[in-house]
């Protein structure tokens, strides 16, 4: 998935951040070892994370990956390069 293009993977990061004591993007980024801009891009649906980052984010919130990320049915289901 190219950065900047829409991704078919949706996420609940923003909701989970607020449910975890209004955790800031910076705090989540530091916990996952990425930049704040990557969290920003993830929340905006412009970037699909690697499997490793997806697990890191889920572990930070103490939930499973499938509770953070989901496949967006509305987006084109055709495989992307």
């Amino acid at each position, binding site marked *: 998935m190219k950065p900047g293009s829409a991704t078919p993977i949706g996420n609940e990061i923003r909701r989970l951040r607020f449910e975890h004591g209004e955790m800031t993007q910076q705090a989540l980024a530091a916990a996952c070892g990425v930049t704040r*801009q990557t969290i920003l891009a993830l929340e905006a649906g412009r970037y699909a*994370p690697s499997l490793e980052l997806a697990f890191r984010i889920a572990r930070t919130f103490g939930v499973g990956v499938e509770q953070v990320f989901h496949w967006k049915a509305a987006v084109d289901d055709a495989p992307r390069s």
Partner: protein
Amino acid sequence: MAIRNAAWIGLLAVAGLATWLLVAGPDRLLGIDTGNAGMVLLITTTWAALYAISRMPREGGEQAVVSPGEWKAWIGLGFMVVAITYFLAHVQVFAAAGPFDNPDANRIGRNLVMLLIAWTILSSVLRSRWQGEVEEDERDRQITRQASGWGYGAMTSYVVALALVLGFSPADRLEWATHFMIGNLLVLSLMVACLFEHAAKAVLYLRDRS
């Protein structure tokens, strides 16, 4: 606020003067090498701008931020634009004698090398702004990978174009193509690749934020 704006406008004006001295100004003014003076002035204004940026408080809103990778891309792009413009503005000096008896070419080469060294130093100074923070992650690496494709493409196109010009031009039209000139034009291909890579990076980061 008004003082800060005036300071930024002042810095911009000095940077403009420095670029003019470096690229289009006379070779010497009152016995001073204007290229050298322009370069020192440009590096000083860049350093002052970066220092001012590093002293600014971080924005409160979570949306208005530029990542370390994007900063590096824009600074690299700026330096490469200045370096290539300076090179092209003085390219005719490389058509003359070789490096050992061509003081003008030596002066241009020295200024270019100093400009690139200054860029490296400024980049490391800038790194201190993100001390203790993540500077690069998987998204940055993905952007870098995409951008390096643009750099490679630009360099390939440039080298092919140069080869075609040298290979198909009649000999009487290639008087400018001394060994020294061709050597320098090949160095320029590396600079062009670098320029395209930084430009692509900057655009990708910008697109990612919009």
